[in-house]
């Protein structure tokens, strides 16, 4: 390891730049949470000149890996940290609530499914929209990759921890899922509510147990499928007190009533306080 780090520092010297003089808080992780956190960073930096918050993507686990190892100040994630990362000292803050909804190609002719039907669709027990009172059309299941946070929520809440059918089409991102569903007759999928709202012209929402997904339905406790967006910091690795303070202030700003009820709502998420009383761990 010693020779390795020596070698690396030689490479580093050849390309290292002067460290930034401004106080920097680096945020890495979930690309889905990226936009809202970036927006928060922009607003926060306006009131805190001299502070620089750099938000970059990389994926939920990349963010968690990095924050656990001290590679970044804040890791944002759609999923909870693993046991090992918890052991490394990462601390969770739920920053937003993310409702999920079933979507389908507009031509399937089904507007509502029961919880059991939804489960059967994705486990492969139901294979044609006809069986649900829709068009005679094969069901094409579009899902996210195994490591995706959305898929984890879907497996837990919709499939009740059973395995997905093997007959699926997998797309890496929600954007690609929406495109696939909108162009593939018979397609069904499971996405964040905001994606349905922004693509109403191309895809159709399907109600779950008779309740259409909406912010209000989640707030009233009528719609059960949602998850938290997380921000993790690792106090053990934040040796610089100023950086730690800046990171904590930034998280406090995200959780402030002003930001939660303003930007968070506008961005299609729900404020954490709305569902605080409900389950805290999915």
């Amino acid at each position, binding site marked *: 390891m010693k020779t390795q780090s020596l070698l690396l520092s030689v490479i580093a010297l050849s390309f290292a730049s002067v460290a930034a003089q401004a106080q920097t808080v680096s945020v890495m992780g979930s690309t889905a949470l990226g936009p809202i956190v970036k927006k928060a960073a922009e607003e926060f930096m306006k009131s805190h000149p001299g502070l620089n918050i750099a938000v970059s*993507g*990389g*994926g*939920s*686990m*990349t963010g*968690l*890996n990095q924050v*656990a*190892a001290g590679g970044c100040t804040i890791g944002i994630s759609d*999923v909870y940290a*693993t046991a*090992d*990362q918890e052991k490394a000292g990462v601390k969770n803050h739920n920053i937003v609530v993310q409702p999920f909804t079933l979507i389908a190609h507009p031509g399937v002719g089904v507007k509502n499914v029961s919880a059991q039907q939804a489960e059967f669709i994705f486990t492969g027990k139901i294979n044609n929209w006809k069986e649900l009172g829709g068009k005679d*059309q*094969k069901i*094409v299941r579009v899902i996210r*990759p*195994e*490591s*995706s*946070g959305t898929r984890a929520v879907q497996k837990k809440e919709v499939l009740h921890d059973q*395995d997905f059918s*093997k*007959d*699926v*089409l*997998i*797309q*890496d991102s929600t954007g*690609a899922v929406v*495109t*696939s569903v909108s*162009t*593939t*007759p*018979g*397609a069904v999928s499971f996405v964040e509510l905001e994606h349905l709202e922004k693509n109403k012209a191309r895809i159709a929402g399907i109600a779950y147990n008779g309740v259409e997904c909406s912010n209000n339905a989640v707030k009233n406790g009528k719609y059960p499928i949602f998850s938290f967006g997380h921000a993790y910091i690792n106090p053990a690795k934040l040796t610089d007190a100023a950086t730690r303070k800046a990171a904590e202030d930034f998280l406090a700003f995200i959780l402030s009533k002003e930001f939660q009820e303003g930007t968070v709502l506008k961005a299609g998420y729900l404020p954490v306080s709305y569902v605080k009383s409900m389950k805290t761990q999915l």
Partner: protein
Amino acid sequence: MLMLKAMPSTAGDPARDAVPATKMRLSIHSEGSRGLRFLLDRGAHSVFLACALVVVALIVGILVFLSLRGFAAFLPLAGNTGRTLSFAEVFLSTEWAPSSDKFGILSFMAGSLSVTMLALLVAAPSGILTAVFVTLLAPGWMKTLMRQVMDLLVGIPSVVYGIFGLTFLLPLISAKWLKDSPAAGFFAAACILMVMIVPTIVSLSMDAFEALPRTLDEGALALGSTRWQSIWRVLIPAASPRLLTAVVLGMGRAIGEAMAVQMVIGNNPAWLSLMREATDRAPLIRFLFTPAATLTTELVQELPNTAAGSAWNNVLFAMGLLLFLMTMGIILATRRLGQRGAV
């Protein structure tokens, strides 16, 4: 920047005066500075050698770092948080379900091979024929045009190809040919890969034909063969070792492409068993239009979302190492082919 300095220029050019070479031009005429010239020459030699050694160091570096992470899957190393896997359960199993502790990557290897071969099936002949056309038959303006076309096709970013495939090609195939069933799979991926690797094959095949002695073609024509007979029976066989090299290098590009393929292939790790079980369509149709996955597509999708040190993450790095070793294998194979051609 170096090349700008090196461009032909007149002696008084101020930019040139900064270059040590100018000093040396003076030194040619002054007897006393022989030692300096010698030293500079030796110094330059080591600088150039160092540059070349950087490349070697990079290869070694890639190998070492990928091995450190990749072999962690099979060895009980300190940073591991998951269990240690055996080679057999990774390389000889088609079952990939990391959250259920199954790490077989055979279906990804098969997927990479299938999509590459499928792309080559069209790209190799059409690439070689295009090279034949450009080097031997086309009029001058067409030659220039084709070179431009190939340069541009090489330059188009793979994401652009991918998005084109996702938003345009897939719906088109699905609506036109498949009675509305999804089109994601090997066929769409191979179509896109084909366009991406043809330029490589064309430009290398053109080199191969240009390297042939003119007398070969002329001799065949003098013996009364038609142009096509000369091409088919004389020139293509004579160039075949280098043509094969061109094809193999195209294959290398196809195996390594990630972003474009990932958007259109459907990414289903269970494609092998899915294909076996589904019997409602002809086998070939099933093969072409079942959502499938390859080594690269799986890497791109899962790597950002797996925990460092977990068996899952380690296996992904092992897949990266495998890709790198495959590249080395391909390069060594072209070496062999090249040597055979040189005899």
